[in-house]
């Protein structure tokens, strides 16, 4: 009794399955998640209620959802340019940190200023900082053909240590009781909130604008077309006369600038100063968001909201279910596993004879 399982590349590549598989992945994650809750001796239904529904059942919760989703969406939108081009920038966490250092540095340098130009220049320098950090792997890739996956990853840790150096060294708050944090930014350097008493800030508008622009770029411009072609085959793009090296540069700079922007929004928005742990892994989690959103701008907005919910749910789970907030990472890891796994069904047809 031998069954032959044959695996063949699908010829009828279907858009329907392509967009269905994230939903299947989410469903499988919930299914497995309920087993985890059962093992922990918790009722799955009650737990899911605390995890996914109660965090967003009031206006404060919904505001927090957007506070978490904003950086994820902005970073993931930037990354989608790289990933579409088949360039693996996985150093968004470092680019985010550099954006916070550059933009935040402006805020600390002019901390007596009440000029309305302070915030715009912080935002500008945030984007420049992130883009600058992303040009390093781009330069190494185009000049020396150095593997961008490893360089961008190494640079992430370098950036984190640079931030650490600043907040325990030159930028340490003299009145901060020796804690490793900077002085707070002046009021003019803080990101305006949308509603009094809630933390949701104007970064949301930036996310929406970037989403809109990306949608047009990907679908209506020659640049977007070049990205898709060279992502499919870098050789084809070179034969077509596209400057592949320039594409690598542009995509790295766009994704770095987005990550830097997100970093600046974090420190000038909800946090208000610089310290060590400005990001709960947003730069890495955004990679999941980009994949889960299928590198589609609208998909990324939706998946950023979903992944943001795992952060909020994990905080509530810690509070009410007494399980570590790291449970959020379990869900994030699972959803990525399942998404990658279901992609297989998308690419290949399996039949048993």
């Amino acid at each position: 009794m031998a069954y032959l399982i044959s695996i063949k590349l699908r010829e009828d590549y279907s858009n329907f399955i392509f967009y269905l598989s994230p939903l299947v992945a989410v469903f499988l994650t919930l299914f497995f998640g309920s087993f985890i809750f059962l093992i922990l001796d918790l009722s799955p239904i009650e737990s899911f209620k605390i995890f996914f529904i109660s965090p967003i059942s009031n206006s404060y919760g919904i505001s927090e959802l957007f506070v978490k989703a904003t950086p994820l969406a902005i970073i993931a939108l930037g990354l989608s340019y790289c990933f579409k081009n088949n360039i693996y920038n996985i150093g968004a966490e470092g680019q985010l940190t550099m954006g916070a250092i550059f933009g935040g540095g402006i805020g600390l340098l002019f901390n007596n200023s009440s000029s309305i130009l302070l915030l715009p220049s912080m935002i500008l320098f945030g984007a420049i900082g992130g883009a600058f950090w992303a040009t390093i792997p781009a330069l190494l890739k185009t000049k020396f053909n150095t593997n961008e996956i490893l360089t961008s990853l190494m640079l992430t840790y370098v950036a984190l240590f640079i931030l650490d150096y600043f907040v325990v060294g030159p930028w340490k708050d003299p009145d901060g009781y020796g804690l490793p944090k900077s002085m707070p930014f002046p009021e003019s350097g803080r990101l305006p909130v949308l509603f009094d008493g809630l933390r949701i800030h104007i970064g949301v508008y930036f996310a929406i604008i970037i989403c809109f622009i990306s949608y047009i770029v990907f679908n209506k411009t020659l640049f977007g077309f070049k990205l898709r072609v060279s992502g499919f085959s870098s050789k084809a793009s070179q034969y077509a006369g596209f400057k592949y090296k320039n594409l690598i540069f542009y995509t790295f700079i766009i994704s770095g600038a987005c990550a830097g922007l997100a970093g600046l929004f974090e420190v000038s928005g909800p946090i208000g100063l610089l310290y060590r742990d400005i990001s709960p892994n947003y730069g890495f989690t955004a990679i999941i968001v980009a994949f889960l959103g299928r590198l589609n701008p609208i998909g990324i907005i939706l998946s950023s909201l979903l992944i943001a919910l795992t952060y909020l749910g994990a905080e509530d789970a810690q509070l009410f279910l007494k399980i570590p907030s790291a449970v959020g990472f379990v869900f994030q890891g699972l959803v990525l596993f399942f998404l990658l796994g279901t992609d297989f069904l998308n690419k290949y047809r399996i039949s048993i004879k």
Partner: protein
Amino acid sequence: MNLDLIIGILNIVLISTTPLVLAGIGELVTEKSGVLNLGLEGLMLMGAVTGFVTLVLTGNYFFSLFFSIISGIILSGIFAFLVLNLMTNQIATGLALTIFGIGLSAMIGKNFSGTPIDGLSPYYLIIFSFLLVFFVSYFLSKTKSGLIVRAVGENHNSAYALGYNVIKTRYLTIIFGGVMSSLAGFYISVCYAPMWQEGMIAGRGWIALALVVFATWKPWRLLVGAYIFGGVAIMQMNLQAFGVKLPGQFFNMMPYLATLIVLVFISSNKIRLKLSAPSCLNIPYEKNS
């Protein structure tokens, strides 16, 4: 400086560097067969927590070691299934493994953080790490199986044409890497610390990953590199005690900066050939294509 102090410092370097050697050698073998596993940090955390929890529950070092290794086999087996059978993206799958491991280890260990245990002497695994480097070096350069591993990593299509089982070889190297990572985790929570704390691997998985590149995929160089990195980290603490003003963060970034420089250096193709970087690294193998 007296002799006792020097011996004391060397001893600390020896004890703190061993996990880098263990995890690094595992990843080296995995990468030699053409697979990049970014899940080291997650594998090490899971190895650490299963080893620790088993020791608290049973009080038996053998069981503790055993279950720690089992965790490595299961998790790296899942990774292998995804990247080899389902041909998923290795980068994304490795990151998923790390994120998943960070989360799951914290959940498993939540009731055990701060529990005191009698640690195992670190010297067993320290001696093992040196033997491991010797055997892996011998295996890769002198044995037929080692040659197959390298062939699979160098050109999987040719290796397949020659009749070698690419998938099976990579399964074995990935699981070997997973077991070594979990052993490194076990060492940290049971021998080195000895305790459990959420996220206690603290980036050692990434340093081990950097080391493999730094060592240009050569086991002996990896051993030397690990001791340079480990030595610099310990030296930094001592220098600060002596009042040297250079900020510690710059010492901490050195492994990453050194790896960056090596990466640039080995990128040009002529040098790359001499330096034995596996050319199929991170390229998925599709059997029926």
